[in-house]
């Protein structure tokens, strides 16, 4: 922001500029006074620990971004810590608890989806167990009263930036007069 040349300003402009300056000064002193109190009374956070964490984090990012770390970020594993290797698609086989057929682990979820009759592409199966399972779908929303502000609407979380206050009026019914 360029500072206007005092000599060229009309008295009106000078005055407004002066007032603006005072308003700014007042705000600056407000902040300074608050911080002074916080610092003098020892209320400020453990800034050494915080700075240490920030430093470690910055250092970590630099190290990880370096070319020598590409093997880690590649995501290709050779062996795990127990010396085992695993295929891309899990090949353990077990019986489906819905239809009883043996299924490969890595394909269990898509199988179960069709088996239980869910999903767009599934045909409804008229087996005893899936019918019984379908009767249980009439349960209410899985979000219980214990997470009132968690808006579960599918895979996308709503982000409106504000916490939806659960009361519409001011009410202080829980407090008693001393």
């Amino acid at each position, binding site marked *: 922001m360029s500072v206007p040349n005092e000599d060229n300003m009309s008295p009106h402009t000078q005055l407004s500029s002066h007032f603006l300056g*005072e308003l700014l000064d007042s705000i600056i002193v*407000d902040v300074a*006074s*608050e911080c*002074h*109190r916080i610092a*003098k*009374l*020892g*209320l400020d956070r*453990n800034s050494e*620990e915080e700075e240490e*964490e920030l430093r*470690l984090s910055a*250092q970590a*990012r630099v190290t*990880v971004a370096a070319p020598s770390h590409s093997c*880690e970020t590649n995501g290709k*594993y050779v062996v*795990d*810590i*127990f010396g085992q290797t695993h295929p891309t698609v*899990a090949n*353990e086989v*077990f019986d489906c608890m*819905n239809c009883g057929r043996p299924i490969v*682990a*890595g394909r*269990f979820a*898509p*199988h*179960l*989806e069709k088996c*239980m009759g*869910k*999903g767009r592409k599934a045909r409804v199966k008229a087996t005893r167990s899936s019918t*019984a399972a379908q009767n*249980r779908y009439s*349960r209410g929303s*899985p979000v219980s009263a*214990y*997470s009132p*502000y*968690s808006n*579960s609407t599918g*895979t*996308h*979380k*709503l*982000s409106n930036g504000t*916490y939806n*206050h*659960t*009361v519409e*009026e*001011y*009410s*202080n019914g*829980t*407090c008693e007069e001393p």
Partner: protein
Amino acid sequence: MATRNSFFANPKPCEHLADYKLRHGLSGYKSIQKWLKANPYGNTSIKMCETKIPRCLFCSGYHQGRLFLCLICSSVSCSDHTLLHTQSEYGHDIAVDIERSELYCCLCSDQVYDPDFDKFVVSKTFMDMPSKTHDSVIDDLMRRSSKRRRLNSVVDLDLKRSKLLVSMRDRRAKSCYPLGLRGLNNLGSTCFMNSVLQALLHAPSFWNYFLSERHGPETCKKRSSDQLCLACDFGVICSAVYSGNRTPYSPAQFLYSWWHHSANLASYEQQDAHEFFISVLDGIHEREGKDWNSNKDDGGCQCIAHRVFSGMLRSDVTCTACGFTSTTYDPCVDISLNMDTTNFSSVDVASKSVRPNEDTGRSTLLACLDLFTRPERLGSDQKLYCQNCQERRDSMKQMSIKRLPLVLSLHIKRFEHSSLRRSSRKIDWFLQFPFSLDMTPYLSPSIVRNRFGNRIFGFESDESDISSEFEVFAVVTHSGMLDSGHYVTYLRLQDQWYKCDDAWITEVDERIVRAAQCYMIFYVQKMLYCKANED
């Protein structure tokens, strides 16, 4: 910390203030008390006269920056002339900043502090507040917080018992690594489930409960034919993972049970790990909760899910016209945090072409927590009814944490859905998070005290509140695009970090974890962390 509290309550006065107190005691404070005028979310100022503006005695200026009122003779001087006043009147060293009600020592040229003065300021503020607000505001501050969560004896028993069970297990395979480390097979886009399961399987006092078989097929009342129980199924996974067997486990039964519980989320496609987490805790609560007296006043539901994860949030809504504040408390099992969008480096701001959703943004967890507890001005379309004013008013709202859980789960809202543009996007910014987290500044007493200008008042508890210190033990990260990403969990066991990528368990350096794109961060109370890790 104990030292911090005592320092706060008893700041050391300068010699001039000490001298003033000796000679004049509290008379100066008493005399100006009637002039104190408080503003909610603002300064407390001194208003001596309704019709005239105070002026400096020496220069007659009233706009020379700060004005100070002498506590002895009530004369006013501006910041340039306070020294003159104290030189002309011997002993008139202590004054009060009129705009901010802060003590000022004219000889030290510095702001000074006195708990006695603060008490006068605070009691005047309380006297002026609309009557009902008084109680809710002092609730947290004046009374001793007796509800501080302690490690109860049951948890302790679980810890001991589960450790015994774990040590008795088969040690054939890879006994040099901590037990409980076992890969989970991906059953088809189920990494969202695996990542959260890994975190739950290592949440101190949560896994111990299940491993100690406190919820099992014998005790479970819901287990009859065709009836599924998420808690039982979790117990099964727990036993499997802590059995000593290191081949990856397939949590198929759990997936089946969960799809029954959360019908609307059941489909073969990538789900949101956070939603899964909430849904699982809810499922376990349902199976457990009815066995206990829920909504007891001493802490709500006593099911294992809530005993470990549930905390309490406080919401204060203040009428901007009269200052009347309404306080409500809501339990929560986690805290969802918005990323602070204003945290750009100066380079980004200068180049206008950089938009917030580019990869250049970054933030810190503490900044997100600051944002969460920041006073927020509710829009004029959200006017709330004020009981005191008897009409709808513009309001301010502020969140704080009333009670911390044993395990603190923080969720970073990286997925944004815009109903306007009918699109969703993922915020890829880097979020710095600490390994050791002190939650004290976000607790209700700190937040409310800050709202009252950080005045010294009330009974400061001398005991250090160690239950506000947390240590991270699990981090769930998300990489890739919104719909086709991959979840991975990093676990911290015995001070070593492990990467749990579905079936693959590998050791990683802590720097990898620090640099990772966190989505959910799990912290545990430091006390419990140390206990769980001692071996």
